[in-house]
């Protein structure tokens, strides 16, 4: 199976075969982590950058009253904490959602990747900028869209992000999030998530059964969600200034 991290980073820079071999070598040692386990907690000083090769994870923050806010989700190919190589202490926590295959990359390896391989450096920079763009979109989502459009937008984004690393899932994919996790993500109660999912189903925008999400008419769902994939920056800039 193609390495999802390489698939993803190829959207950010024209990686050579040598670059890809270097990235592949970094992923040689993997470990399996069970679902719903903390990978790293707020306040920690991690010694590794972690990478998701398989499964779903999420970034979250806990409020003092015990509520949880999920601020991002991670899919195969996503780095959990690339920025921590520079920033040090974690300002949020990261947990698995499903069982995950993870890679731990020591900081000095990240340093070497960046200092010796300009195209990899560019691709990692791209990935960080895209993470920021995703957060910007999510701010608009939380602040200005109804929960139904917010959730529809999440489905549209997830579809593009999964397709760019797996090259399938055009009209459906595994969607493992519980209604409670969705409520932490959307900032509404689980009862509202349940109602909104039901409305999206009734309106024929999605199918959802046994954790499989189906999108019968992608254009219609994207129009409903006001989804424009530009912010995911999957089309590479030409020419590159690396």
């Amino acid at each position: 199976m193609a390495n999802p991290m390489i698939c993803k980073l190829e959207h950010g820079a024209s990686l050579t075969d040598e670059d890809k071999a270097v990235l592949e070598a970094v992923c040689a040692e993997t470990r399996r982590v069970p679902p719903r386990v903390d990978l790293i907690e707020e306040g920690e000083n991690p010694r590794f950058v972690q990478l998701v090769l398989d499964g779903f994870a999420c970034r979250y923050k806990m409020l003092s009253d015990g509520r949880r806010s999920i601020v991002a989700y991670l899919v195969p190919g996503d780095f959990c904490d690339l920025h921590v190589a520079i920033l040090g202490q974690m300002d949020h926590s990261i947990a698995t959602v499903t069982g995950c295959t993870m890679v731990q990359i020591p900081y000095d390896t990240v340093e070497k990747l960046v200092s010796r391989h300009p195209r990899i450096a560019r691709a990692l920079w791209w990935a960080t900028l895209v993470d920021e763009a995703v957060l910007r979109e999510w701010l608009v989502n939380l602040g200005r869209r109804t929960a139904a459009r917010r959730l529809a937008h999440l489905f549209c984004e997830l579809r593009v992000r999964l397709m760019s690393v797996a090259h399938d899932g055009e009209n459906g994919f595994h969607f493992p999030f519980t209604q409670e996790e969705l409520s932490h993500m959307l900032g509404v109660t689980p009862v509202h998530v349940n109602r909104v999912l039901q409305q999206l189903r009734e309106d024929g925008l999605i199918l959802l059964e046994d954790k499989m999400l189906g999108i019968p008419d992608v254009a219609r769902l994207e129009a409903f969600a006001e989804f424009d994939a530009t912010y995911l920056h999957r089309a590479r800039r030409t020419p590159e200034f690396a």
Partner: protein
Amino acid sequence: MPLYYFDINDGARTTHDEEGQPFADPGAARDAAIAVLPDIARDELLDSDRRSFTVNVRDESGRHIFRATLSLVTEWLDPAGRPPN
């Protein structure tokens, strides 16, 4: 934990909850019914001018155990100051 079902009417459509959600007791289900109303109002007031939202809670036996309604009541106080439609 027993399941409770939340049927919601937003003035235009009713969603019947077929899945249900687990809560420790009827009190917790009541709290959830009240908590969902601001979520619904926020959404629907963004999208339309619907003004009354109702949640009916059923227990596992199908009995209706609780209802909560959130209404927005508005009125013009001086007919002369009302803008033409």
